[in-house]
């Protein structure tokens, strides 16, 4: 099954400039695996050395944060759009 993954601006240098990448998969996890297979240099941007999704990398399936669904096991269907959204935060005082 094919679906699309929306790539944020900072990561488009690893997808040859593409903002939308068509991938295959039946779950969010397998779709992301397909993305990394197509664009291997994305792997270290999205995952730690231990293979876990980096803490600041958020994944949405259409309008839902997959952490509130079934996480990487969330089932996807054709024409779904997965979005990768790096978090943005900060503040003037030191931690």
């Amino acid at each position: 099954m094919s679906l699309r993954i929306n790539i944020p601006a900072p990561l488009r240098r690893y997808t040859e400039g593409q903002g939308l990448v068509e991938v295959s998969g039946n779950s969010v996890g397998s779709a992301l695996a397909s993305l990394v297979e197509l664009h291997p240099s994305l792997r270290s941007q999205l995952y730690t050395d231990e293979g876990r999704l980096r803490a600041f990398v958020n994944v949405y399936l259409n309008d839902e944060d997959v952490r509130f669904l079934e996480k990487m096991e969330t089932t996807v269907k054709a024409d779904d759009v997965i979005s990768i959204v790096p978090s943005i935060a900060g503040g003037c005082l030191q931690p």
Partner: protein
Amino acid sequence: MLIIKNGDYESLRRHGEETYPFECCGALLGRFRDGHRVVEDVIRCNNTRADRPQDRYNIDLKELLAIQRQADERGLEIVGFYHSHPDHPAQWSQTDFAEAHWLSCSYVITAVEKGSAALTNSFVLAGSSEEDKRLEPEAVTVLSLEESKSQCR
């Protein structure tokens, strides 16, 4: 370099005054051009750090997702973010650095002193990964209305 129209520049500075003594935050939409970030629009966001808005900011992920979609629809990209430092210097903090993940984007910081916008600085998140990222100062070019028009031609 960050290139921004005067109206947009003043808008983000005013935002910091309006939310004082709390931090403001927002996104910069535009284009990456010749290694520079050219701002086309400033999107104000809500600071969701209700627990300590005086020295922290956070943009809600759903709001960020909507901004990302808006950028795509308009043929633009998120080229940076801005926030204010109420009664603190316009210099990135360790918290800013730890929470910065948008490589190649600008992070604009306005110091707001006793309610008035003071210095505004911009830093680009350089590097190729989370492991070698760094915030580097970058020049800010503020375009007058006339200069903005000539940029569009």
